[in-house]
């Protein structure tokens, strides 16, 4: 009987083989269909395998050790509840993205730079989730980064993309080195790199703290935790849109998996303050991320920034879970943890959906700049509809999925009074406030994203010529839209599905939801809090259709098209519409001061003067200016100084040798 892991590994081998094959045929016409088709099939197969494994024997662990990788450890792979869940996330994303790629890939200008790395990227993400020893983990981790780097670099003639790719890979390897150090601590001097060994070994408090910090650096830099996020809004948009979807929707989740795997699984019992750190980081990340998103006018960058926000939400829930776990409150911890995982799943759905939408807009119009779009709802009805669904879901509005996980997170926050530490008691609600704020801002942000891009009148000529895109892309997006709705109205089923991931790590799970009447979800007790997405959905539908019915039954049907009211000016130019910048202006006024050190300079001509008024806004990425620029400056300074050593005369070089010799001899002479 071949174990599930083995099956999965065969699947991954097939993916890698596809990558090689793609490298061979990538310049042929049929390559695109071939590669994405194969990737689609394989990912679907992997998905089915994992799902059936979960269904047949949930929670059962299946492990294997291959004679690869680090010699005396071997390459170990393991499938448990957690990795199964993340495998589902990864491969679901992989399947749908491949489906999308079947259509989107046709428009790719340089397929030979995308096709070989796409399957490799998928395989890398799968391997990270399966890896069961430090070496295999890091190898897959960095392989994943490398493949995605190549994909970001695929449109390499654009200077901006090259810069993005460069910053991305440097940050990635910074993260990898941090993880490497963390694993070094966990493995100890003997070098026991197998996760099973690490699990049993309990590091001291100091070491545990160091590992947590290093994990926040390592996994955080990959996931886009502020202030390590700087690369993310550069790199994610630079890639082809379906890859952006993978990076934003899936790869960040793999990073979160890494964090969970080490901090919840390998590290043993956490300290209560670790919860505080993660909570705060999460909250700050959420707020800053969405504020940045609000200020963006580039659609894909906006989406990337909103990814940062969602990562923040997830990390906040994880921090909460840590805090509860540290205080031996398993049920509450399970609730918070489930909320985090649920949000992972949801975000992978709607963020992929939104990036797909952005991709179709990009292919149709060739524009990423929202200021040049508008009115697409008339040209691309289907795209705009599914994009709208994505926007509603990501804005955490019922009855869609984003709300369900957000709601769970809030429920978890409401467990905080039972926490013994005052610090936590006070911080948790504060972070809750941050999350609420970020949710509200997210709604604002996506009103802007949808409103400016799809609604209103066309802001440039390109929009007139656009039309709906191919069926494959639409199908992919439609599927995701359906998922968003289903996960929103049937959250109970998802929560039960997550129990197999929660149970081993937390030691408890949320109460079984499927048993609840009317499929509502009840974290603790119905008297305390409950939510029934299905009924809310049904009610809204019923009452809306009731209203509609009533109206059409009794009210007048007369309808006339007329010009919009423009204070008597008919047909104001499209330029007169609100732009993305002007839409964000009130919020910039409120938050810009501390978030971006934003300054506005208005020069208003005297009344009666005819020259136009100008408003100039300068905003700063605080994180970038506080951390990255000084480091770059320091390196530059050091190189400048040291560089003189390249241009000395031989006599000076000899002097160096001579001095070095004398110094060493002196040391020796003074040696005790």
């Amino acid at each position, binding site marked *: 009987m071949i174990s599930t892991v083995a099956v999965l590994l065969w699947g991954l081998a097939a993916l890698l083989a596809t990558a090689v094959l793609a490298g061979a045929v990538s310049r042929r016409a049929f390559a695109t269909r071939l590669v994405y088709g194969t990737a689609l099939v394989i990912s679907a197969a992997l998905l089915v395998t994992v799902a059936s494994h979960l269904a047949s024997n949930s929670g059962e662990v299946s492990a294997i050790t291959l004679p690869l990788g680090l010699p005396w450890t071997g390459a170990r792979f393991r499938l448990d509840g957690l990795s199964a869940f993340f495998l589902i996330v990864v491969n679901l994303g992989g399947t749908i993205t491949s489906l999308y790629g079947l259509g989107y890939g046709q428009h790719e200008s340089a397929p030979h730079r995308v096709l070989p790395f796409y399957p490799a990227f998928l395989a890398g993400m799968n391997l990270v989730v399966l890896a069961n020893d430090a070496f295999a983990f890091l190898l897959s981790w960095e392989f994943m980064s490398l493949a995605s780097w190549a994909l970001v670099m695929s449109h390499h003639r654009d200077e901006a993309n090259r810069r993005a790719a460069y910053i991305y890979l440097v940050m990635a390897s910074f993260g990898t080195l941090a993880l490497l150090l963390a694993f070094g601590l966990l493995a100890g001097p003997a070098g026991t790199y197998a996760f099973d060994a690490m699990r049993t070994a309990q590091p001291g408090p100091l070491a545990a703290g160091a590992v947590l910090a290093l994990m926040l650096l390592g996994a955080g830099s990959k996931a886009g935790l502020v202030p390590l996020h700087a690369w993310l809004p550069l790199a994610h948009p630079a890639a082809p849109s379906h890859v952006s979807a993978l990076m934003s929707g899936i790869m960040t989740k793999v990073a979160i998996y890494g964090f969970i795997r080490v901090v919840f699984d390998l590290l043993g019992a956490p300290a209560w303050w670790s919860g505080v750190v993660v909570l705060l980081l999460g909250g700050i990340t959420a707020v800053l991320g969405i504020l940045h998103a609000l200020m963006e006018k580039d659609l894909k960058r906006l989406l990337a920034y909103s990814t940062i926000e969602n990562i923040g939400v997830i990390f906040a829930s994880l921090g909460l879970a840590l805090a509860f776990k540290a205080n031996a409150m398993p049920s509450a911890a399970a609730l918070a943890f489930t909320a985090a995982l649920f949000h992972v799943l949801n975000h992978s759905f709607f963020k992929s959906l939104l990036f797909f939408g952005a991709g179709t807009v990009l292919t149709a119009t060739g524009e990423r700049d929202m200021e040049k779009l508008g009115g697409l709802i008339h040209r691309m009805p289907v795209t705009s509809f599914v994009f709208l669904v994505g926007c509603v879901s990501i804005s955490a509005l019922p009855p869609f999925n984003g709300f369900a996980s957000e709601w769970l997170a809030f429920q978890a926050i409401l467990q905080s009074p039972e926490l013994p530490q005052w610090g936590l008691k006070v911080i948790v609600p504060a972070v809750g406030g941050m999350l609420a704020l970020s949710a509200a801002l997210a709604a604002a942000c996506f009103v802007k994203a949808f409103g400016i891009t799809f609604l209103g009148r066309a802001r440039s000529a390109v929009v007139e010529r656009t039309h709906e895109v191919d069926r494959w892309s639409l199908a992919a997006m439609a599927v995701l839209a359906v998922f968003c709705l289903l996960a929103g109205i049937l959250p109970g089923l998802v929560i039960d599905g997550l129990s197999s991931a929660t149970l081993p790590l937390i030691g408890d799970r949320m109460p079984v939801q499927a048993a609840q009447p009317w499929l509502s979800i009840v974290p603790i007790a119905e008297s305390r809090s409950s939510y029934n997405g299905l009924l809310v959905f049904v009610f809204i539908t019923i009452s809306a259709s009731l209203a509609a019915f009533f109206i059409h039954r009794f009210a007048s049907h007369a309808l006339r098209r007329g010009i919009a009211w423009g204070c008597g000016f008919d047909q104001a130019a499209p330029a007169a519409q609100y732009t993305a910048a002007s839409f964000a202006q009130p919020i910039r006024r409120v938050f810009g001061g501390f978030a971006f050190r934003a300054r506005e300079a208005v020069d208003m001509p005297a009344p009666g003067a005819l020259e136009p008024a100008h408003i100039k806004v300068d905003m700063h990425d605080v994180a970038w200016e506080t951390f990255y620029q000084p480091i770059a400056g320091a390196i530059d300074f050091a190189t400048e100084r040291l560089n003189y050593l390249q241009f000395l*005369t031989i006599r000076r070089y000899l002097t160096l040798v001579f001095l070095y010799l004398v110094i060493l001899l002196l040391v020796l002479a003074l040696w005790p």
Partner: protein
Amino acid sequence: MNGLTFDIAHLLAGSLVLVSFMMLYQDRLFALINVFALHAMVLALSVAWQAYIQDAHHLYITAAIALVFKAIVIPVGLHRIIQRLGIHRDIETAVGIGPTMLAGIGLVTLSMVLMLRVTPEADPLAREDLAFALSIILLGLLVMVTRRNAVSQVVGFMSLENGLVLAATGAKGMPLVVEISVAFSILIAFIVIGVFLFRIRERFDSVDVGALDDYRGERQ
């Protein structure tokens, strides 16, 4: 061995160090080369003496090489080069004489301190020889780094190598000494020829930045 032989060996080695100091003191090329000739001669003597007391006859060859090659051929050759290049009147110390001498004294003390840590059981002659050899080597390096002129750097290198030969011959029954001294003589010949061939007048390499750039490729 009796005191006299020891004392003579000791005297010769010590005088070698002394000559090294004299080299440090010179600032004219001709004078420097002459002093080096003396250096080589003293080396030849001490090697010969070592050959006699260890009655290792092959060491006489080394002594002969030192005498003929280093004390006569090379100095003459260098004289020629200097005249050819017309740099015989240059004063060419990079660091003042005074500091150089101080540094030299420091180096000698350093080598003494180092070598006297060696266990007394070791052959005292070898010990002393080592101490002197080390100081000669360090002084030779000092000459190399304090002189700007290619020729005087060659001289410094040769004195350094004299120190090596002294150490090698001091080590009782050390094989390959002759071969090594021969090899080194060839090496030095190379260097001298190089100095001559490449017309390296002032220094091994120019210090004027423009020249540096195209020499070292970097820095557009």
